[in-house]
């Protein structure tokens, strides 16, 4: 800027200034990003912190910090419904993952690798497109009547079926993408060697599609574990409901046990957060792959 004659020197100077400006820009961007990340984590961390606080410290007007396990031991005590609700949630998740896994894998295999009559392909395809768009609440009245008619209202089996219906279209889509990636030559080779359709599915296709099955099962498991609406409307509460509904029932008009509430919330969240750290690639793949389609 100042000395036009020293061309080389100013060149390096400008370079250095440019580099410094770029470093500064990078740093600013990182700072903004870090602040945003903090906004996204802090609420969760605060709940986990509160689950180790006494109710007195939580209600206090001042900043008081305890470290107590009272809340955790209280919610796991015998007279509380949480153990039963935890067991319910685990049974529902396991049942849904198995049922949804079987139904989605078979349907996706049929769609991807076998020749189906056009009306079957159209029906399954249309279901996969339409069902995820329907608000679950719009289906609740119908599910309610159907479960009453079949005597499944309030049962775990009923909730397993409903959760499977909600997750099946998405799981089928993920599995179909998985099957599409397997080269058709493998199937032809198997059929030339005399393997039946069922046999080549079981011994060749299924092992190859296992990664997709794990992704879709993980996704189904998280969605089912988090499911609230069906548990709320199809059970009568107490020991018959899943954990998510148990959490909501702790918020009562007169006395709220904030510490215990936080502890149950953390109990529902921390396992999934740990799973997400271990399998973030899979969950991200599940979220983005299915939703882009």
């Amino acid at each position, binding site marked *: 800027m100042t000395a036009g004659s020293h061309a080389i020197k100013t060149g390096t100077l400008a370079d250095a200034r440019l580099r410094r400006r770029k470093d500064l820009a990078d740093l600013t961007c990182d700072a903004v990003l870090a602040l945003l990340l903090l906004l*996204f984590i802090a609420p969760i961390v605060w709940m986990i912190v509160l689950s180790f606080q006494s109710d007195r410290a939580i209600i206090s007007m001042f900043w008081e910090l305890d470290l107590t396990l009272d809340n955790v031991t209280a919610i796991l005590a015998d007279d509380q419904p949480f153990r039963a609700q935890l067991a319910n949630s685990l049974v529902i998740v396991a049942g849904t993952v198995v049922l949804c896994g079987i139904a989605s894998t078979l349907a996706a295999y049929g769609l991807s690798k076998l020749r*189906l009559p056009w009306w079957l392909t159209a029906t399954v395809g249309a279901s996969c497109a339409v069902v995820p768009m329907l608000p679950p609440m719009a289906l609740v009245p119908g599910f309610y*009547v159907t479960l009453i008619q079949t005597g499944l209202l309030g049962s775990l089996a009923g909730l397993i079926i409903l959760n499977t219906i909600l997750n099946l279209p998405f799981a089928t889509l993920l599995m179909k993408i998985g099957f599409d990636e397997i080269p058709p030559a493998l199937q032809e080779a198997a059929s030339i060697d005399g393997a039946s359709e069922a046999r080549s599915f079981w011994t060749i296709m299924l092992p190859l599609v296992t990664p997709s099955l794990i992704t879709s099962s993980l996704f189904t498991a998280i969605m089912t574990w988090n499911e*609230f609406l069906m548990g709320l409307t199809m059970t009568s509460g107490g020991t018959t409901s899943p954990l998510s509904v148990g*959490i909501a029932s702790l918020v009562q008009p007169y006395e709220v046990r904030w510490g215990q509430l936080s502890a149950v919330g953390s109990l529902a969240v921390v396992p999934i957060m740990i799973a997400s750290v271990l399998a973030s690639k899979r969950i991200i793949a599940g979220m983005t792959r299915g939703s882009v389609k």
Partner: protein
Amino acid sequence: MALTFWRRSSVFAKTTTLPFLVLIVGVGGYSWAQVVLMAFSHLRIEAGEFVWQPAGFDNFREILANELAMYSLAVTALFVVATVVLSVVLGLVLALLVQRSRRLNRISQVVLLWPAIVAPVVVSLIWLLILSPNIGVLNKLLDTVRLPTQDWLGTEAGAIVAIIIVDVWHWTPVAFLMLYTALCAVDEEAIEAARCDGANEWQVIRYIKIPMLMPAIIGTVFIRAIMGVKAFDEMYLLTAGGPNGATTLVSLHIRDVFFDQLNYGYGSAFSVLLVALMSLAIGAGMLVRHLRAIRPFSATREVEA
């Protein structure tokens, strides 16, 4: 030979879709048929049995005459527009920042996943612990820095703002992940070429990255809009539709009518109306895209292709 192969295997082929069809078309379709049937019926429970009476369009007339029903449609529309715009813009900003950052790239992808996988009912609990006028940490913070405390959940406008903030916090990560994935797939050569031509960072974002991301942005808007209409769990604990019904989103209205007022016909009719309105909106959106796509020499056509 191929023909005999297919014919021989067709029984197994058809069987593969059987479980899917039984569950979705069987149970799901049957349940939806019940909703439609109930929408045109008067239902009472007598001695533990449903008593059905045909009602024609009575239930729909009742909806049109119900102020809260109309309000819930309006407030849901406002909620959807606000949450879609905010979460897509914030998601885009995050995607651009994360892609640029070398130090925080990996950790961002893990951490930003968390809000999206937290159970929605726990999300409402988390925000109750923050926004509650009595024990909320926000008031403690405001008090500490000598600012006036808030009671958003107790006022009508404040409660609407609160559920929008909560929903944006909850679902921006999904918008981020979709846009980030698309951003990583953007052709690096176009960006390099623009930089060689002297474009600065802002111009690269404005004229290269965002146009190339347009299909992904439209997809994200669509998915987020659907999620907005579906919203229920987060509001159920946080505001329960209040104060004075200010945050009664459509799902909360259906639950209230069906399970608390036991007005089964009305609740079902509202479900049918909601799905019909959504179909109309989606149909209109697709029509607009279609018309834009066939317009000759349009810029969007090239970008989308």
